Structures are given as C-alpha cells and as structure tokens.
C-alpha cells in the first residue's frame, strides 16, 4: 500500500460525501417535517388525550440522545427482519429526531398567533380546518421560519452521528481518509470547514429572518 497524503483526490472524496450529508438532511427535514407537523397539530388539538400523547412524544425525543434514536432504528429495523442499507436506518432516525424538535418549534409558532385570530375566524363561521388553513398556519409559518432554518443547521451537524453505524457521509469519509493518510488534524479540519461552509450561511439566514420578523410588518 502506498502511503497517501491528504490531497486533491481526498478532498474530492470529501466533497462527494458532503452530498450524502445534504441528502440525509433533506430526508430528515422532509420526513421530520411531515411527522413533526402532524405532531404539532396534535399538540394544539382540542382533545386533551391527543395533546398529552403529542407532548409525551416530544418530551421523549428531546430527552434521549440522537445516537440512541439511531441505534434503536438500526437494530429495530434489522430485528423486524429488514436487511436494509445504512441509509434507511440513518434516514429513519434523522426523521424521528427532526420530528420531535420541529413539532415543538411549530407548536410554539401556532400558539404565537394571537388568540383573537382564532376568535375572529371562528366568528366568521369557519370550520377548524379552515381556520388552520387560511388564517392560523399562514401566520404561524412566518413566525416559524427563522427557528426552522436554525434547526436545519442542527440537523446538518447531527447527520454526522450516522457515521457511527457506518453510513458514509462527510464525517465518515473524513475517518476513512484519516485511516489511509494518518493526517487527522488536516483531514478533520477540512471536514469541519466543509460543515461550516454549509451551516454558517444557514445560521446567518436564520438570524436575518429573525431580525426581519421582529423589525418588519406582521405580514
């Protein structure tokens, strides 16, 4: 075996693996978004048992390590008889993880819409579904945008945990290159830099949206 050093080829491999990080993030945000949205609605339901069930779900997801969600999905899926590539366990766990946090962010956003908006729309004879659809959610969406973008940063970073079950995304690619080159400092700094390049603009966008939400009109 030739002793390789960290060069352009290796950096290319990192860039390639970054695509998997991004794909996993997108899966987590879409899957977690759908599931989280349902949980957020359940959390603001008029039925108390539904509210309590949703609150319990959120508390549990936010009270356990992402790593444990990953292991439970990984071993749980194989226990159920599925021989699936790590992408599935990775995607499933990131989805569950994201749903617990997005549900809470969106619950907060829904409840941040003034009570009077519910009363006004109710008084106009709208059904609860119409109230959500035309009056509450459009306003909640605006409120939720900054923290949702902020949470996307957390998701990007936490996809690195899936490297632990062998899913080859950016962090795992770094480990593989390090195993071949033994230049950990350089390799992991490059890995960190790539994460930063993705996360920092998102962080700044979240801040910008936040500032605009507070400074701007209520539209």
């Amino acid at each position: 075996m030739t002793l390789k050093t960290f060069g352009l080829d290796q950096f290319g491999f990192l860039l390639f693996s970054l695509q998997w990080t991004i794909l996993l993030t997108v899966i987590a945000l879409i899957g977690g978004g759908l599931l989280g949205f349902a949980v957020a609605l359940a959390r603001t339901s008029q039925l108390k048992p539904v509210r309590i069930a949703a609150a319990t779900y959120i508390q549990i997801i936010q009270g356990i390590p992402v790593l444990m969600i990953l292991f439970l999905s990984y071993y749980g899926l194989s226990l159920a008889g599925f021989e699936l590539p790590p992408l599935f366990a990775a995607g499933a766990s990131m989805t569950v993880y994201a749903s617990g946090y997005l549900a809470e962010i969106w619950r907060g956003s829904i409840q941040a819409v003034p009570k009077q908006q519910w009363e006004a729309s109710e008084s106009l004879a709208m059904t609860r579904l119409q109230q959500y659809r035309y009056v509450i959610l459009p306003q909640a969406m605006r409120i939720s945008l900054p923290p949702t973008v902020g949470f996307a940063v957390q998701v990007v970073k936490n996809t690195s945990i899936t490297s632990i079950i062998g899913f080859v995304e950016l962090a795992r690619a770094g480990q593989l290159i390090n195993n071949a080159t033994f230049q950990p400092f350089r390799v992991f700094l490059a890995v960190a830099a790539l994460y930063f390049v993705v996360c920092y603009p998102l962080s700044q966008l979240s801040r910008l949206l936040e500032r605009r939400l507070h400074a701007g009109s209520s539209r």
Partner: protein
Amino acid sequence: MPEVVVENVHKSFGALEVLKGVSLSVGRGEVFALIGRSGSGKSTLLRCMNGLEKINSGKIEIAGHALGGDAKALRKLRTDVGIVFQSYNLFPHLTVGENIMLAPRIVKDVAKTKAREVAREVLHLVGLSEKFDSYPDQLSGGQQQRVAIARSLAMRPKVMLFDEVTSALDPELTEEVLTVMENLARDGMTMILVTHEMGFARRVATQTIFMHKGRIWEQGPSAALFADPETPELRQFVKSDVK
C-alpha cells in the same frame, strides 16, 4: 317575531358568576346599547350571543337559530350573526380585499367574481373603497375597524354585534367608526353594541340596557333612560361619564 331572544341566561367563569339570569328581546331593526362598568357582564353577554362563550343555563335565540346545538349548527348561526371586536382582529397576512372575501368564499362558497363585487360594495359602505389592496398594518386604527365591520357585513348578517369597537381608538378616529355604525342602524340593521360612548347610545340606540353585577339593572328607551335614571347606580354611572 323578535330577532334576538335571551332568556334567563346564567354564565360563570369558575366560581365567579358573571351573568345571573339575564333576559332581553330585540326586535328586527332595533339597536340595543349595553352599558355598565367593566365587570358588569355586558361583554360576556355579547360574546355568549354568538357562542364565543358557552352559557351555563338559559336560552338564546338569534337570527332564527338557537344556541346550544352542535358545531355545524353554531357555524350556521354565525353566518347570520356578525361580530366586531375592540382590537379589530383583521388577518394581517391578507389584504383588505382578501380579508373581506375570505369567509364568503370558503364558508358560503360564493364565486370569486361575486365575492369581489360584494367586497367592493361593503368597502364603499364604510368609505374605504381605495384601500382594497392595502394591508391592515398600512391603515389607521379607525380604518382597520371599518374594514372589520365591512368584513362582517360581507357575510350578509341579520344581526350585528359590536364589542366596545371604539375603545382602542382616538376621539377623531372614533367618530368615523361611529358614523359607519349610525348609517348601518339607519339602514335597518339589527344591532347590539357594548359601548362606552353614552352620547352615541343616547342618539342611535332604540333601547339602552344598564348592566350591573351580572344583571340587567335598568332598561328603557335610550332618551328616557339617560334623561331620568331610576336607580342610584345608573344615576351615578351617567354622572361619572359626563366629563
């Protein structure tokens, strides 16, 4: 056949009883003013009339609907009963036109062109034709309140409820809203209003009800009631209001 009938209504918030057996009857085209100190139960009574508050006992019939049915019956009632709030409560993410058109479109399935026509008409009624495409936060408080009235009118209600609609407004803005309401009354709309504007109540309301401690303390034709209060409480109240 009266348009609004309230019979022996009781309402409590927890241990606090805010309505202790209230009865009244409003004929078609009449304008009733509810006055009284804060905490007298007048706003609660108004909010009970369109089901925003559930009553504990008694009976309310309004615009031919009885309160107390299921959600569907309540929505049916609300298409015939408009309410305007102190804090306007326009939908901030929609333009004035969209605010007005929304409920007719989705609740009453009115076609878009027809809804637009109605919106223009009611907006003209409140004197804000040129604000069709503005957003609520581009309007003054008085203008927003007039849009809120127009939004209710677009549903073609049989009864209009007004809950202290000028309390958040400066005097000059108050006037423009009261003018709109006076025009409505003249056109024969059945109206019940909770108000602090004694002059307006005296001039426009056919009947005024003075509420005190959760009861109707005194009631009568507005002019007579204000000119010659029977109870010391109303006398005190009217006197304290003259500034």
